[in-house]
């Protein structure tokens, strides 16, 4: 077994977090308690530099929807875990190394490749719409959609796009012939 140099690892991780301006990085199962803890942490942090109330609200909103999306995939991942994958997803919030001071929420989780085309088409559709188009799509989804057993209504991504006014930046990385790693980046502009 390869020997791990912990002091080097910890220092490097610390440096990477600072360089990327990550406030919080979490990999694992997302529970309701964790969602509450993370949103409180982010709110306190934003309070500490007197962040604008409307920006705070947007960050809170995006965090809640992103965390709930991650937690909804937990069931799939239990199956995946037995096949050798661990973790339920990664959640990152920070300013992500940019010159600007905007907030970024990044998520990543394993998805089955069979689900990728549908998800990709949905994300592209959201990105193709303007403010009014998104409003109409949200209303349509609310009327026609039903709540899944896990409490999903297919509204989270539309809502994130509406609240931030930004395009959803996504990618799928190949893991193997059955699975892909889905990453999503949401930007919340500072006023």
């Amino acid at each position: 077994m390869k020997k791990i140099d912990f002091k080097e690892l910890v220092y490097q991780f610390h440096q990477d977090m600072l360089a990327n301006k990550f406030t919080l990085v979490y990999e694992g199962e997302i529970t309701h308690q964790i969602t509450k803890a993370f949103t409180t942490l982010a709110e306190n942090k934003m309070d500490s530099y007197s962040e604008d109330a409307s920006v705070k609200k947007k960050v809170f909103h995006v965090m809640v929807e992103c965390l709930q999306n991650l937690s909804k995939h937990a069931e799939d991942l239990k199956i995946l875990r037995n096949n050798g994958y661990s973790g339920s997803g990664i959640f990152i919030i920070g300013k992500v190394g940019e010159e600007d001071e905007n907030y970024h929420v990044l998520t990543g989780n394993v998805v089955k490749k069979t689900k990728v085309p549908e998800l990709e088409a949905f994300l592209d559709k959201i990105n193709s719409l303007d403010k009014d188009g998104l409003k109409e799509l949200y209303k349509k989804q609310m009327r026609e959609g039903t709540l899944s057993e896990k409490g999903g209504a297919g509204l989270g991504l539309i809502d994130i796009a509406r609240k931030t006014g930004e395009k959803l930046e996504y990618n799928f990385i190949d893991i193997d012939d059955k699975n892909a790693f889905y990453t999503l980046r949401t930007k919340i502009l500072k006023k």
Partner: protein
Amino acid sequence: MEVVKIAGTDDTPEVKIDPKKGIFEFSGRSLPEDVLSFYAPVLQLIEDYIQKPAKNSEVLFRLDYFNTASSKVILDILIYFEHISKEGHNVEIKWFYHQDDEDMAEAGEEYSEIVDLPFEMQVYRH
């Protein structure tokens, strides 16, 4: 039918239902851990109520925050009342929002566009 009161928490709204007076009130924040199990008894009460509604029904929303899963349930609630309104009963929806909260104002307007019910938008300051 008895008056029902559910105390609010950090992530669930305060719910007050007075079937005799026909008053339904939701206030606070709504992002329950399990949206379906939180709202199931509330929806059941409303379903029972609409079998024999009061002469006038008033539904008040004073929400500070709700997540997208809750937004779907709010529409379900409104649709119940739309049914009895179509049957000729008086229903009034009162949607409260803080003067700085454009999102909440917009959400109320959207619901008023989806369902055919009289909506009264009420802005508050403090």
